[in-house]
């Protein structure tokens, strides 16, 4: 008997729990993931011949990580799993996939996008120097390759990941030069009521901070990044910043790990023609979903950090909720008590996430203060000054128009790392609300596609 064709994209926590819920209901989903192994980012698995324990790799989340991996392994006989496979486009109810050099299409009746997130970046002058990495990148180096990105790493930005990665580096014996948070410490106090929604997570965060302090790592909050110094050939040599008191300080380092929380990977939702709305709280455009993850397109569901940044635990819950919504929409019965329970858990996690956002806000105000010679678009090496000049000379304000004239966002990464900051710079330069700048229109392929790729024989 041929059931509905269900495709799940992403084998991280959201995709895993979504597939698990579908399989339990008798569906055999197709699960497509870009990586070699399941786990997504936070539960990224090390190569087969590595020996480190779960405790070493995942710290306080070791139990969850192991549970995730086991849950995924248990699915293997019950799903059609395609790792190492890039979904590069979505077209007319089928997903377009690149595997090795072959191109295939998987038609679907229902689609669940669990595409995860990447770091959200605010440029710092000099961030285009060799030796600058995202916090996520610094973490992958350690978690998946047992490497540090340098001998003395300076960590700068904001968000829980800032402290987590720095503490992980410390524990692994890497050189941690400094941990510099743009958010003032007082914000965390004010956010305490929300952070108490998940006490364990709050305690873990405090423990990380204490571990860094006990080790004598220089830590500052309320900083303003000034410049990553170094040379075009040699890369990073140091980092300067203004401390909370307004003093200019510097840190010697040969690597910088930077990031400001996360941003969802929404390209496939865009190509699936989901509607987006402007989220004032996080100052970004997000796909619209209902409380269970239904998008504005019938048959397309969104779950995990790929639609809202709520963290890995929430991703598991939203993966289950999306699966339940899908099953309901197929006319299958769903355990309403379980559904209600998942929604309750999600509410609590949403509250915690609000607390994180309040504690570690996206530093929108830094965009206007970027010097003209700071590179904004790393792919195309476009500076803040060039971007401001486009606005002044052409009057362009809308994101795609600015891109057409100034090339920001036209590079290989399609604006993943520059679009947020570029929009803030444009809004400030044009003196318009951020929402008016709009968002970059999604264009396939979501990642570079080789012209040597050939269609699979039908």
């Amino acid at each position: 008997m041929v059931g509905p064709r269900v495709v799940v994209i992403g084998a991280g926590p959201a995709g895993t729990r979504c597939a698990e819920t579908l399989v339990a209901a008798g569906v055999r989903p197709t699960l497509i993931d870009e990586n070699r192994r399941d786990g997504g980012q936070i539960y990224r698995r090390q190569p087969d011949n590595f020996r480190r324990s779960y405790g070493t790799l995942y710290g306080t989340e070791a139990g969850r990580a192991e549970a995730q991996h086991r849950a995924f392994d248990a699915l293997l006989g019950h799903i059609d799993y395609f790792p190492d496979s890039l979904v590069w486009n979505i077209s007319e109810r089928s997903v377009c996939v690149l595997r090795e050099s072959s191109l295939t299409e998987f038609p679907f009746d229902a689609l669940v996008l669990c595409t995860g997130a990447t770091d959200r970046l605010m440029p710092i002058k000099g961030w285009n120097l060799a030796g600058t990495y995202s916090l996520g990148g610094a973490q992958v180096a350690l978690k998946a390759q047992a490497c540090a990105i340098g001998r003395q790493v300076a960590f700068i930005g904001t968000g829980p990941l800032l402290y987590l990665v720095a503490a992980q580096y410390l524990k692994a014996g890497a050189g941690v030069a400094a941990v510099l948070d743009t958010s003032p410490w007082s914000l965390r106090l004010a956010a305490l009521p929300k952070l108490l929604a998940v006490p364990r997570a709050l305690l873990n965060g405090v423990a990380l901070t204490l571990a860094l302090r006990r080790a004598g790592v220089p830590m500052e909050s309320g900083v303003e990044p000034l410049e990553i110094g170094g040379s075009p050939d040699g890369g990073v040599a140091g980092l300067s910043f203004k401390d909370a008191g307004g003093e200019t300080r510097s840190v010697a380092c040969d690597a910088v790990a930077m990031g400001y929380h996360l941003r969802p990977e929404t390209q496939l939702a865009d190509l699936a023609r989901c509607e987006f709305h402007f989220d004032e709280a996080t100052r970004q455009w997000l796909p619209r979903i209902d409380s269970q993850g239904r998008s504005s397109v019938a048959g397309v569901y969104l779950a995990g950090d790929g639609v809202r940044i709520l963290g890995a635990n929430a991703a598991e819950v939203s993966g289950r909720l999306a699966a339940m919504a899908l099953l309901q929409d197929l006319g299958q019965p769903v355990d309403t008590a379980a559904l209600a329970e998942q929604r309750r858990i999600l509410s609590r996690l949403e509250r915690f996430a609000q607390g994180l956002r309040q504690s570690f806000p996206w530093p929108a105000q830094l965009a206007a203060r970027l010097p003209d010679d700071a590179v904004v678009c790393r792919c195309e090496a476009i500076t803040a000054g060039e971007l401001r000049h486009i606005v002044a000379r052409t009057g362009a304000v809308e994101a795609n128009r600015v891109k057409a004239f100034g090339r920001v966002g036209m590079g290989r990464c399609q604006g993943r790392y520059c679009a947020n900051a570029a929009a803030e710079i444009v809004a400030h330069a044009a003196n318009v609300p951020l929402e008016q700048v709009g968002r970059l229109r999604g264009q396939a392929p979501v990642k570079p596609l080789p012209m040597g790729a050939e269609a699979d024989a039908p």
Partner: protein
Amino acid sequence: MKAVASDVLVVGGGIVGSSATFFLRQRGRSVTLLERGMVGQQASGVNFGNIRRQGRPLEHLALSNRASATWRRMNELVGEDVEHIAEGHIRVCYRDRPEILDDFVSYAREARIRGLDLEVVSGTALRQRFPFFGPEVLGGSYSPLDGHANPRLAAPALARAARRNGATVVENCEILHVEKNGDDFCVTSSDGRTFRAPALLVTAGAWSSRFATQFGEPVPLASHGPTMCVTEPVPYSIHCAVGVVSPVKEEDLYFRQIPRGNIIIGGGLRNPSYPDVCRAYVMPRNTLNQFRQIRRLAPELKRLHIIRVWTGVEGYLPDSQPIIGPSRTTSGLYYAFGFSGAGFQIGPGAGDVMAELIATGQTTTPIDVFDINRSAISTTS
């Protein structure tokens, strides 16, 4: 609210409309350009960017040559860099269509008479000068003064220059209603503004037929979306624009490399477009076809990755030629649209000649072949 009055109203801010506006100002006429979205956002902004005279029907070459003269001075005219590169254009045929090489020779003979010098190249000379061509390429016709430019920049730059010279350019202006009252055309926009002029030029691309229909001369205008993609930046080595001539639609690919290194690819099959919502969508199989064609045309390029695909809405007429000229029903009304995927190079020429026609009553470049009444596009059987 009082109507904005000018000598000429131009409806549609693509390359043709913005050129016409620019040249009308140069001729001292007051002009108002009305654009529903942003200038140059539609076909004029998404096309391949070919600045190509060769390959056009011979009767188009006079206008194309005129446009070419404008392109040579474009940066100076608009005071900005539109990234025009005039380092040649070569169009080739494959070994399985040797007769096309003969066509290149006879076309070159006819083109020379009309002021376009071409060189037919094959064999060792082809391999030496264009080493990127694959083994199945037989030969080509090379136009040394043709080239390419950046379509995203050109029309907006023309409109900005026109505005600096005193033209009124109104963006985000959707036209609700047009009528002729006495000597004047009166246009009302959806936000309640009105505009008046004794001359109205319709340069609204794929959206022009509504006006032609209203004034009693309906035209069979269709729309399609081109298939476009671009590679990552790679070492700059191909300076001329490149195209394929083939009777097989899938095969008529073209590409050009810009100094930054990206290679822009167009051609092959077209995509469905939806003018009502100003959208078109690239069908994945059309992108895959371009990969197949590139592997045949320039095999080493298959190692490269594309980083973006796009399309837009282009207006087509059944004989693939534009309508350029006066209305045959209504005095003071003029048209320049329907460039059928080949409007970028010739667009400034069309704008220039329409400015001349509107300002002086005649044109030094013949445009009869583009007449709205021509039998090839007559909607009456």
